[in-house]
């Protein structure tokens, strides 16, 4: 390494260390993104780009051919827009609930309560499970002859077909997702809470500051960087949601829980014809949305830091 440094100078050495990773990322991240963009401007069922006829922006024009973007049924590719709106609703409720529940749990688990270690492990445990396993467990609980309906009927109630009613299906999709991932976000917030200097709380207690004011004036402002991380990560993960909801509801009833990633998967692989071009165009749109969201969140973080 010393010889290399002598040859190229110390200032260029970081690039030497970055180069292998850059090659790796180029090959397995940027090249596939490039191929995806190529697919989005070509058509037909062939898999090799060289065999696919160039169609320009046709796939994008097809996706965006809508009477009103607020009404999926006015769009030529209505399933894409149903996926977009379902994902937006899912993200709105899932991120909101996730942040709130994780925050409350982290605040409670930060207190010196009995069995704190046990509870921390319990809330983190679902994070270790595969999303498919999570969805199957909840499917068994929620199906017609599942545990929940058994409990309801034992109390004299009627069975509820949770996966037949659109509102229930979306509710359980959000609930299961929050249940499965909140442990991870709780851990991030817990780490943030433990990094807050304890003398600030001691001083506030000496001043007899009410608890809610301590929360508002000390805890939340100092926890904000961690909150941003939680919001950004859960937002990105929420937009990408597929496996859990797909196994739990199959996107139904109708298209009530069809997420945009499921639309991309089905368009590319499950449908005959497998429409790789349209799926690629939809995934480019999704990628751009995620990119914009991430930039906006990073900008918000920087503004707060200043």
């Amino acid at each position, binding site marked *: 390494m010393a010889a290399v440094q002598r040859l190229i100078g110390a200032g260029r050495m970081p690039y030497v260390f970055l180069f292998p990773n850059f090659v790796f990322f180029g090959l397995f991240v940027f090249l596939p993104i490039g191929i995806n963009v190529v697919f989005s401007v070509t*058509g*037909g*069922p*062939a*898999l*090799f780009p060289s*065999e696919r*006829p160039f*169609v320009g922006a046709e796939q994008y024009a097809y996706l965006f051919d809508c009477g009103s973007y607020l009404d999926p*049924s006015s769009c*030529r590719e*209505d*399933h894409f827009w149903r996926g977009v709106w379902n994902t937006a609703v899912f993200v709105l409720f899932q991120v909101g609930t996730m942040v709130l529940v994780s925050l409350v749990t982290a605040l409670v688990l930060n207190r010196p309560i009995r069995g704190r270690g046990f509870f921390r492990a319990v809330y983190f445990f679902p994070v270790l499970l595969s999303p498919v396993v999570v969805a199957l467990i909840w499917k068994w609980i929620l199906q*017609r002859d599942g545990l929940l309906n058994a409990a309801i009927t034992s109390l004299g109630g009627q069975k509820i*077909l949770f*996966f*037949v009613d*659109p509102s229930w299906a979306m509710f359980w999709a959000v609930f299961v997702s929050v249940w499965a991932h909140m442990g991870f976000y709780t851990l991030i917030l817990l780490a943030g809470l433990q990094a807050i200097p304890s003398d600030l709380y001691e001083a506030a207690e000496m001043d007899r500051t009410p608890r809610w004011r301590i929360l508002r004036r000390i805890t939340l402002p100092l926890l904000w960087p961690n909150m941003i991380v939680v919001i950004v990560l859960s937002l990105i993960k929420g937009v990408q949601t597929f496996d859990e909801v797909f196994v739990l*509801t*199959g*996107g*139904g*009833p*109708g*298209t*009530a*829980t*069809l997420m945009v990633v*499921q639309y991309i998967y*089905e368009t590319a*692989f*499950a*449908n*005959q*014809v*497998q*429409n790789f*071009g*349209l799926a690629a165009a939809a995934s480019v749109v999704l990628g751009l949305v995620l990119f914009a969201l991430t930039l906006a969140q990073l900008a918000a973080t920087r503004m707060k830091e200043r």
Partner: protein
Amino acid sequence: MRSVTSLITTFALGLAAATALTGPVLAQSVTLRMTWYSDGNEGEVMTDLLKRFQAENKDIAVVLDQVPFKAINENLPVQLASGQGPDIARVTDMGGLARYALDMRPHLKDPAYWEANFGPFLTWMRTAGDTKSIPGFMTQLTVTGPFVNKTLFEQAGVALPGPKATWDDWAKAVKSVADKVQAPYPLALDRSGHRFFALAVSQGAKVFDEKGEPAVIDDGFKRAAQLVYDWHKAGIMSKELWGSVSGTAYRGANDEFKNAQVVMYLSGSWQTAQFAKTVGNAFDWIAVPNPCGAGGCSSMPGGAGLMAFKSTKNPEAVAKLMDYLASEKVLGEFYSRTLFVPGHLGIAKKGIDYPGASPEANAALKVFTASAAEVAPTAYQIQGYGNSRIIFNAVISRLGQAIAGETNLDEAYKRITADVTQQIAERNKQ
């Protein structure tokens, strides 16, 4: 210098000797990959047959990759498109995969045998305009048809509708039974376009115009769609099957039927072996002829074909294996042990015994064999059409939305037509 020369000579001689010893073996030894899915015991039977083939043909190894049915529909087409597919696969979307099929004629022992025994079904595996190639054979011929839980009818004290009963007759009867015995699924239809068209053809759906181009929405189709829609409204069909998932997802009612929750289940002859095994003595079940409508009592023909693919590097070995599996003796044993309706004209003509079948399974197979004789020409035309799966998928996706209350039937009809047109246009882009 001399030592270097002697070293090179020794190495060269050693290499030549090694080549002489192993070369012929390597040249002859080939490995074939066969992708396979099972509804019943056919994977076990095929494993047995392959063992026997390999005992007779030591130079050909066959690896049987047993996969779920979903993988056949979703992964296999991508594998084939990328040129990385198996040598042989058991498939149901034969028309859709015809472009990747291997014409085995140059390598087959007797192509005339194949033409004579699989002739009508070979068209299902060929691309449009091709009348000669031989890409595979039928591992089974299937017909759609209803399975009925006879015990539930007896418990409810309701008489079974007769042989020429209409769909309406059956709908009334199964609802009456379900109400009396508290069964949650009076009538279940697989969430599958193929199964829907059994109903649609019996209602008079024509599917194609005079030129043979798709014209899916007609009066017969609308009658069938309206029936399915109304049955859901009336609680004759539960929304849990057609209305609880989205898109093109297949949803069967096997588990519900074997748990005695379904009074009548429209599925197909391929379920016979499975129900014989899983239901056992839990209750009495029977297969009944396809119910009738304005267009007759036709069911939908179908089946699974074992197809060879042109991406194979060993077409001779593939043809040798296929010749063995398609031979009358071997295939007869396969049909007999799997309880499949034969897709081999010679075997079908001679008749086939199912010595391992239970009395229920034997009776069901008789009903399905009789149903096969009543299949309407339109039903064969749909099955043989290369883009049929595009039509099937559009129908279940859009009809599913209407059933879930997301749209109405008129809107669903428009969407089905648009989906079919758009997807066929996409497939034709080269």
